[in-house]
């Protein structure tokens, strides 16, 4: 499974939404209905899955699925 697929899978699982809702440009809050706890859980799940550290400042910049993919690619 590609990194992109894996990220999307985590988003689907954490937010309890269907896979076809998750596009690269989807915004977590506006498009996918995430609240602040959802975002925290998403970040925690990605940290765990990809063995990266995402500090709060960085986390605030990760607003879309693509931004998450980019961050993990750059920091893995």
């Amino acid at each position, binding site marked *: 499974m590609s990194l992109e697929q894996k990220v999307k899978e985590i988003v689907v699982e954490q937010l309890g939404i269907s896979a076809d809702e998750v596009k690269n440009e989807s915004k977590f809050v506006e498009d996918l209905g995430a*609240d602040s*706890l959802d975002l925290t*859980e998403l970040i*925690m799940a990605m940290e765990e899955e990809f063995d990266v550290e995402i500090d709060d400042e960085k986390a605030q910049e990760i607003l879309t699925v693509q931004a998450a993919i980019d961050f993990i690619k750059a920091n893995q």
Partner: protein
Amino acid sequence: MSELIKTALVTGGSRGIGRACAVRLARSGYQIYVTYVSKPGPALETCKIIEESGGTASSFALDIGDHQSIVDFFKEKIKDRVFLSVLVNNAGRTMDGLLVRMGHEQWDQVLRVNLSGSFFCLQQAAKIMMRQKTGRIINIASVTAQSGNPGQANYTSAKAGLIGLTKTAAIELAPRNITVNAVAPGFIETDMTAGLNQEVRDKYLSMIPLKRFGSAEDIAETVAFLTSPGASYITGQVLGVNGGMYM
């Protein structure tokens, strides 16, 4: 994956209130995990009491004053291994002294165990309970946090901090169906209070409308209630169990 066993983790389960909570929660049907600081004997005794009445219990060495130990403990023993239904943050210690004479270490140690240690356990438990989308956290505070108590600037500060933590955690974790409450024991007959002299005991007794000291079981019953289905709408509260000593 086989179903994980519903478990209640009680920190400081060797004696007193911790042991009573462990024994009582076992009767509610939870598998019990208790932690102890250094001597395994009394914690094993707690487990034995539980097992003799048909429950399941294990004990673990865990220094609540050490952040990394707590992180490791949750990673190795709790996460993905049990269903963490309940955390009782009970581990605590006193190092009394009048505030003008209170040493740096005396202050730090008591804050580290009673407040920081409880926070780190709550933090680790919250991460797991958020995924479970359910959980009950009970912090054992103290009436002294509400009333003040001479000689316990460190202890009362730590326990008052725990009450603030309880309320913030209750708000933050409510969306995940996790309740967080504090139980504030009054004067309870335990090893921690056994050392007080008769004069002090009489003074306390005169302040208690119900005219008796509490037992560890009184606290355990309240903790068990807070973990029960009937308490699902209670969060962010401080329940005084003190014979009316503080209202």
